[in-house]
């Protein structure tokens, strides 16, 4: 029996690492439902084990965001918030953003960043750090 073909070198699991005071959670390109389901548990467990101010969810590799995936992300962000942390979603590809919007899914009030670097800078900072200067 052949196992289904997978792109080489791409882990199909979620990785969780601590960067500075932040938990960096990286999703694989096309996680199946059990993998998505594990996102919540892995994230909350890691939040509990490490002292962190927040979480960056790295979607750089992700190729599609369907309703189940989006719902899980939004719920996870909500739980992280209940634990006193903040979630920032990083690196969503244009095709993914377009498609998810057309599908009609939302990520709740979760903040987003263009890439992981910017997201790491954003964690712990207020939504509107500087008052806008009037013209």
């Amino acid at each position: 029996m052949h196992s289904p073909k997978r792109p080489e070198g791409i882990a199909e699991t979620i990785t969780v690492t601590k960067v500075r005071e932040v938990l960096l959670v990286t999703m694989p390109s096309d996680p199946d439902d059990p993998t998505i389901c594990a996102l919540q548990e892995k994230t909350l467990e890691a939040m509990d084990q490490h002292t962190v101010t927040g979480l960056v969810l790295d979607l750089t590799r992700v190729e599609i965001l369907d309703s189940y995936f989006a719902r899980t992300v939004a719920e996870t962000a909500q739980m992280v918030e209940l634990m006193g942390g903040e979630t920032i979603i990083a690196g969503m590809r244009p095709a993914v953003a377009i498609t998810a919007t057309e599908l009609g899914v939302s990520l709740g009030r979760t903040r987003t960043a263009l890439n992981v670097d910017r997201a790491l800078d954003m964690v712990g900072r207020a939504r509107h750090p500087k008052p806008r200067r009037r013209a």
Partner: protein
Amino acid sequence: MTLQECGEIEINVEHDIAIARRAVRDIAAELGFGVTETARIVTAASELGRNVHKYAGGGVMRWRALNKNERNGLELSFEDHGPGIADVDEAMREGHTTGGGLGMGLPGAKRLMDEMEINSAPGTGTTVIVRKWRR
């Protein structure tokens, strides 16, 4: 063309949804769909494949390359012998769910694809056909 013109993938366990998704992605790319169009098709397939698994306990996804009036496209057909849908119009309504979801799958899939047809009757099962044409 190296690609075969049609095929089918069984959807029984949760992981089969991901297998179907990956197959659709490869087929769409092979047929010349761009990144965003492919993401649309794959996302629709994910929603419809999950419905087959969730509501009917399993079924099959058939795919077919289309060629009509000089236009190329892809047709996906999700077939199951589950409980069926009593009121298709209601099922198509945004937010209507009997499974504790968001009621986003069917209306979302319709928006993402060019054409969608649902054939269903209580007790006989459900067939959802979607098509996408290359621009």
